[in-house]
Every structure is written in structure tokens, then in C-alpha cells.
């Protein structure tokens, strides 16, 4: 794709103005160092496979024991907490201490709907909603710890607030969002 062809799509003044936006900023040396240091601190490179067979076997055995212990602990917790049992029996994937919150929006002509919010880092790909059999309602259930969460729906790439939310509005840039309060008891 050539730059000239792309600019041909724009009219004269807009094309000239847009070309003025093409200059690339020169990264500051201090910023570059900060990026590299921060990346190094967050380093999670995969380990090189240089372990001996016996060490690997011991590690596998330790993992099995640890997994069994965790599984036992989780099951034990569930038996002790009836609320958690209810969530589990309903097929929810809600973590202990979290409450299932159902979000729904009517978007009969939409192709893809998801939900973004404080609870998923506003990531549009994180929580896709599924279309119900009525052909117009999109739904998703999210396990949330008690608290206050701002959220919005993403309907075919466009943000939309929840008209049924108790608290709803837009931020400083006109981006719609709504607020849900999840109870603590």
C-alpha cells in the first residue's frame, strides 16, 4: 500500500493537514530506559529446559501432590459454605467471595456484543455476551466481588450504556458508561 494512494482518498487541505501528523516523535532516552527497566521487572520468560530427568520427575510428583491438596481444599471450602454450594449447583463459575451478576442488553441487529468494565480492564475481547433464543437479548453472567463497577456494552464495536442501570452517564469525552453496585452480604 503506498502512502500516496492513501492520501489520494483525502481532499487537498485534509491531506496536507494529515501529512503534518506523520512526524514520528523521537523517544526520550529516559523514557526508553524506563520502558526497558519496567519490562525487565515484569519479566516472565519461559524457563529454559535444562532440568535433569530425576528433577523433572520429582517436580511432577510435587505438582500432583500440590494439585490434590488444592482440589481437596477447594472441595472442603465448598462443603462448608452453603452459598458457594448454591452457586456451584447452578453451574456458575463464580469464585468464592464473588457474587453472580447477570448483565443483559437488547441488540437485535448486532453481530457481536461484549461487556467492558472496571472488572475486566475495559478489554472488549474479554467478556463476550451470548445471544438468547429470543434473538434480541444478549446476556453474560459475571462473578464480581462486592463493590462499585463502571461498565459499558460494546455493540459491534460501539460503546453503549446500560439504560436499565441505576447509575448511568458519560465520561468527560462523551463515552457512555453505567455503574453497578454489588452488595457485600
Amino acid at each position, binding site marked *: 500500500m503506498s502512502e500516496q494512494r492513501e492520501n489520494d482518498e483525502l481532499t487537498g487541505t485534509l491531506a496536507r493537514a494529515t501529512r503534518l501528523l506523520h512526524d514520528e516523535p*523521537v523517544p526520550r532516552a529516559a523514557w526508553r530506559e524506563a520502558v526497558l527497566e*519496567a519490562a525487565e521487572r515484569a519479566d516472565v520468560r519461559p524457563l529454559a529446559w535444562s532440568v535433569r530427568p530425576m528433577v523433572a520427575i520429582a517436580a511432577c510428583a510435587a505438582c500432583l501432590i500440590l494439585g490434590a491438596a488444592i482440589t481437596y481444599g477447594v472441595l472442603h471450602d465448598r462443603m462448608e459454605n452453603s452459598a458457594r454450594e448454591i452457586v456451584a449447583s447452578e453451574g456458575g463459575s463464580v469464585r468464592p467471595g464473588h457474587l453472580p451478576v447477570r448483565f443483559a442488553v437488547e441488540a437485535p441487529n448486532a453481530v457481536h456484543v461484549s461487556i467492558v468494565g472496571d472488572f475486566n480492564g475495559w478489554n472488549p475481547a474479554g467478556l463476550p455476551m451470548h445471544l438468547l433464543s429470543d434473538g434480541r437479548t444478549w446476556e453474560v453472567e459475571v462473578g464480581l466481588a462486592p463493590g462499585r463497577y463502571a461498565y459499558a456494552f460494546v455493540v459491534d464495536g460501539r460503546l453503549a450504556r446500560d439504560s436499565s442501570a441505576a447509575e448511568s452517564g458519560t465520561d468527560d469525552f462523551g463515552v457512555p458508561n453505567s455503574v453497578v453496585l454489588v452488595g457485600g452480604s
Partner: protein
Amino acid sequence: MLVRAVLAGDPASFALLVDRHAPACLRFASRMLGNREDAEDVTQEAFVRAHRALARYDEQMRFRTWVMSILANRCRTALLHRHRRTSRVVVDGAAVDEAVGPENGDAELRDAIERALAKLDPAQREAFVLKHVEMLNYDEMSAITGAGVSALKMRVRRACDRLQVLLREDGYE
């Protein structure tokens, strides 16, 4: 390949990736957020997240497209959570009037297009900048934004129409 070298434990290769892609990333973030400081913050976040997720990088995708998708997401989050400046472009009118020289017209026009960009809907601004500043094709834009090609074309078209109106209102025919 630089990504494989980083995963093999060579930090210098990550520095090369930053050097190669940071200018374009900073440019995109600056156009999206309207100021250099916020652009540096989100670009740093994007590179740190990219470094952390490098093992999941799909070599079928250009690295620039991949890191730009992370950056675009950070920019959206920054815009959604922004509660600070609502006016991001400040023009000193007196200084502009006094300024002389052949580049003065370009400086004014640059201010005008930056002001106009800031007034666009964020999704339209994102599509316009990816298309006409970053010079990406629609498939790459779709991979970055998660939006469909037809929706992106519509956003770019509307952005162009709106920018032309705003430039005209600013005295540019």
C-alpha cells in the same frame, strides 16, 4: 527473529524491538490522547504488557500490529478513565499571530488538525489515525481494534467528513 531472541533470554533484542516500534507507537498514542505525557505512559504500559505476553505472540501477525493492538486498548482505557483535562490543545493566539516564516502556515494547520482530531468520537479518531497516519490496511486495523472492516471504513469516512467540516470552520477551505 527478535521475539525469539528475547524469549531465549536476550534483553538487547527487546531494546531493539522498542527502538524499532516506539516512534510509531508514541505517534499513535499522541494522536489518540492529545498529549505527549499520556502517550508515553500508555506506550510504556503497552510495551511492558507485550514483553510479559511475548510467549503468546503469534508470528503470523506483524509485531507492530500486535503491539499496536495492545496500545490501542491502553489508549481506550485511558480515554475511558480520563478525568483530567477536557481541553487538550491550547493555542497561544498572540504567539501564532506574531510568528513568521514559511513554516508558520504548516504550524497553524497542524494545530487546527490536532484540535479537530480531539473533537472526533474516539472510535472515529482511532480509525482515522490508524488509516491515514499509521497507513495501515483495513485487515490490520481490524486485528488491532477488533472491529469489522466495513465498520472501520464507515468510521474513517465519517472522520474525514467531520474533519473537513471542522477545518472549514477553522478557516481552511
